[in-house]
C-alpha cells in the first residue's frame, strides 16, 4: 500500500465543439472506495465516465492511475495497446445497456471467457471452470452457461456483465447506471450483489447514477454534478442528509418517498 490514490483526476474538461460536456472535474479515489456521481440528465455524468474510460479524449485535464506495478501513469499517455490491455485486465466497465457490454450472440460462458482468452488463457477446461464459478457468484444458474445472453432477462444480463468484467480481477470498475431499467426487486438483488462483490474483492468503483438511493446504498462518497460542473462533493451520508448547495438540496428533496 502506498499513500498515492489509485485514481487521481485533475481538471478534467470536455467540450463538444461550443457545447460543454463537463468542466474542471477533479477527485481522488483510493482502493476499495466507491464514488457515486449523481446529477440530473444532461449534467455531464456520462461524459465524465466516457473520459475516464478513455472512450472520449478530454479537452483538458489528466487522469492518473496507479498501475499494478505501483507506477502512477497518465492513462492518456499510454499507447493504445497498453490502454486496451489495462481496460480488459485492471479495469471493468459495466454499461447501462447490457447489449453494448456483452456479445449477445455468444454464450454466457464465452462472454465470461473472452477476457481470460484475451489475456492468454488457452485451456478450455480451466476457462470454463472459471466461467461457471463466476456465473455461480452472480447468481446465474450454471445450466445457462451455454445460452446466449439474448435469451436472458434484463437483470440476468446485468449480472452476466458483472461476471464478464470481474473475471480478470480488476481493481477499478466503472458503472454507468447499472440498475436503471430494472424493476425494483431485481434492482435490489443486483445492488445487493454489487455491494457484496465490492466489499469482498475490495474494488474501487465509480458509479454513475441518477438514483440517490443507489448512491446511498453503495457509495462512500458522492460527487454531485450539474451543467457539467461538480457542485458538491463529500461523504455520502453527509451530502445526502445535510446538503449544503441549493441544487443538492433540490435534488434530495425531489426524491419521492415510497
Amino acid at each position: 500500500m502506498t499513500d498515492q490514490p489509485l485514481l487521481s483526476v485533475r481538471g478534467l474538461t470536455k467540450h463538444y465543439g461550443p457545447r460543454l460536456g463537463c468542466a474542471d472535474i477533479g477527485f481522488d479515489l483510493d482502493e476499495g472506495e466507491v464514488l457515486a456521481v449523481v446529477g440530473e440528465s444532461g449534467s455531464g455524468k456520462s461524459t465524465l465516465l466516457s473520459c475516464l474510460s478513455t472512450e472520449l479524449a478530454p479537452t483538458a485535464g489528466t487522469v492518473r492511475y496507479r498501475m499494478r506495478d505501483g507506477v502512477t501513469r497518465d492513462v492518456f499517455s499510454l499507447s493504445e495497446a497498453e490502454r486496451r490491455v489495462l481496460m480488459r485486465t485492471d479495469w471493468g466497465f459495466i454499461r447501462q445497456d447490457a447489449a453494448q457490454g456483452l456479445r449477445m450472440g455468444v454464450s454466457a460462458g464465452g462472454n465470461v471467457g473472452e477476457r481470460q482468452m484475451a489475456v492468454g488463457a488457452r485451456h478450455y477446461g480451466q476457462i470454463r471452470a472459471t466461467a461457471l464459478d463466476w456465473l455461480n457468484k452472480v447468481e446465474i444458474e450454471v445450466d445457462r452457461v451455454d445460452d446466449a445472453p439474448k435469451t436472458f432477462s434484463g437483470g440476468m444480463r446485468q449480472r452476466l456483465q458483472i461476471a464478464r468484467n470481474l473475471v480478470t480481477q480488476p481493481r477499478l470498475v466503472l458503472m454507468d447506471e447499472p440498475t436503471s431499467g430494472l424493476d425494483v426487486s431485481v434492482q435490489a438483488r443486483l445492488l445487493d450483489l454489487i455491494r457484496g462483490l465490492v466489499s469482498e474483492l475490495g474494488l474501487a468503483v465509480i458509479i454513475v447514477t441518477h438514483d440517490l438511493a443507489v448512491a446511498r446504498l453503495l457509495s462512500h462518497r458522492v460527487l454531485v454534478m450539474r451543467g457539467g460542473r461538480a457542485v458538491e462533493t463529500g461523504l455520502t451520508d453527509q451530502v445526502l442528509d445535510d446538503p449544503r448547495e441549493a441544487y443538492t438540496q433540490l435534488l434530495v428533496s425531489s426524491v419521492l418517498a415510497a
Partner: protein
Amino acid sequence: MSGFAGASSLPSGEGSRVGYAPAGATGGGDERIAASRHTPPQTSPEEREDIAPRETGYNFAYLDEQTKRMIRRAILKGIAIPGYQVPFASREMPMPYGWGTGGVQVTAAILGPDDILKVIDQGSDDTTNAVSIRTFFERTAGVATTTHTAGATIIQTRHRIPERPLAEGQVLVYQVPIPEPLRFLEPRETETRKLHGLAEYGLMHVKLYEDIARHGEIATTYAYPVEVAGRYVMDPSPTPKFDNPKMDRCPALQLYGAGREKRIYAIPPYTEVRSLDFEDHPFRVQHWTTPCALCGSEGVYLDEVVLDDRGGRMFVCSDTDHCEERRSPNPPPSAGEGASRSEAGEGLREARAHGGADAGLFASRAPLAGRPPLPTPADAGATLPREGGGEERTEGRGRSEP
C-alpha cells in the same frame, strides 16, 4: 521495408512471375519446374485445335499492365508481412463475385507466357468453375494449362490444396470469399483492423470456445483460423482444415485474393503456419475409415458420392489429379519427371501397394529445407506413420505457447 525492397526485384515487368527461391536453394524443385517448361505441355494452345488461339483485343491475361502492377505491389507487401490483409483496388472481372474474382486477378498479375496453369475447384480439375477459369486464361493469355499438380507452375484453387506436396517455385493462388477471420464476431472493419494491429486475438478463441461448448469439439471444419509466422491470424479461405497442416512450411508460395472484399494476403515459402486450438482440445484433422474407392488412397481428403436413391454411396479422392495419377499405369506425361523420377514413382506405388499408402505424403510434411521435392522409396519405407483405427490424427508439432 527491407523485406519489401528485397522482394521488389521479383516481378518487374510484363509476364514475369512472382517466384521465390531462398538463398542456396537450388534443389530439385527448381530443376523440375524448369524441366517441365522444356517439355511440350499437354495442352499447349499451338498444338490443340479445339482451343481457340489467344483472343485479340485483350491485354495479356486480360488485365491492363497498370492494374497488374498495382496487384503485384499488393502481393509483394503481402509477402513482406505474412498473413496481413493488404487492401487493393479490385477490378470488375467478367465473372460474378464469389466465382473467384480475387484469385483470377492474382493469377493474371503473376502469370507469364511460360507458365503452366492448373485450376481446381473442390480438388477437381473438371468442374464448371475450374474449366471456365482455365479456358479464360488459355484465351486471354495463351498459356499452357495442365491438370497435373507436379507439372503446374501456378495452381489456382478454391477449397483444396493438392494432395501431392508442392515444390519450390510453384505458386498456389487461393480464391477467398471472406478474408477477415474475425468478421463474424466483430462486424466493424475499423475494430478488426485494430485487433489485427494490436494482435488481440482473444476473440478468435471465443469462436473456438463456442464450438466446444456447443458441439463438444472444435466443429469448425473449413476456413479454420491459422496464425502465420507467429503474428497475424489469417483465414485460409474455405479450405477444409484437413489441408491446414499442408500450409505449414510449404515450399510453394501461397497467395490469397479476395475480389469482392478487395484484399490480398500471402504466405511466403517455408513460413510457420499454426492452426489455433486449446491446450486440452488440440487441432485435429478429419479422418476417414475407408480408403478411396477408386484408387485406394488413405490419409487423403475424400468426397462422398451418392450413387443411387437407395443409400448407395462411395468415398473417392477429392483431388481428381491425385486419384487419376495413382490409377494410371504410366507416370503423367507432362509432370516434368525424368527417368529417375519415374522409377521413384514406381517404387512409391509399390510401397503404397504394400500398405504404406501415402506415408511419403506425411513424411514430406517435415520442415526440412533443401530436401528432395518428392519422397524416395527409401523414405516411404523408412517412415510409415500408420495411424491406428478410427482416431483422429493430431497435428504433430510442438506448441510454443504454454
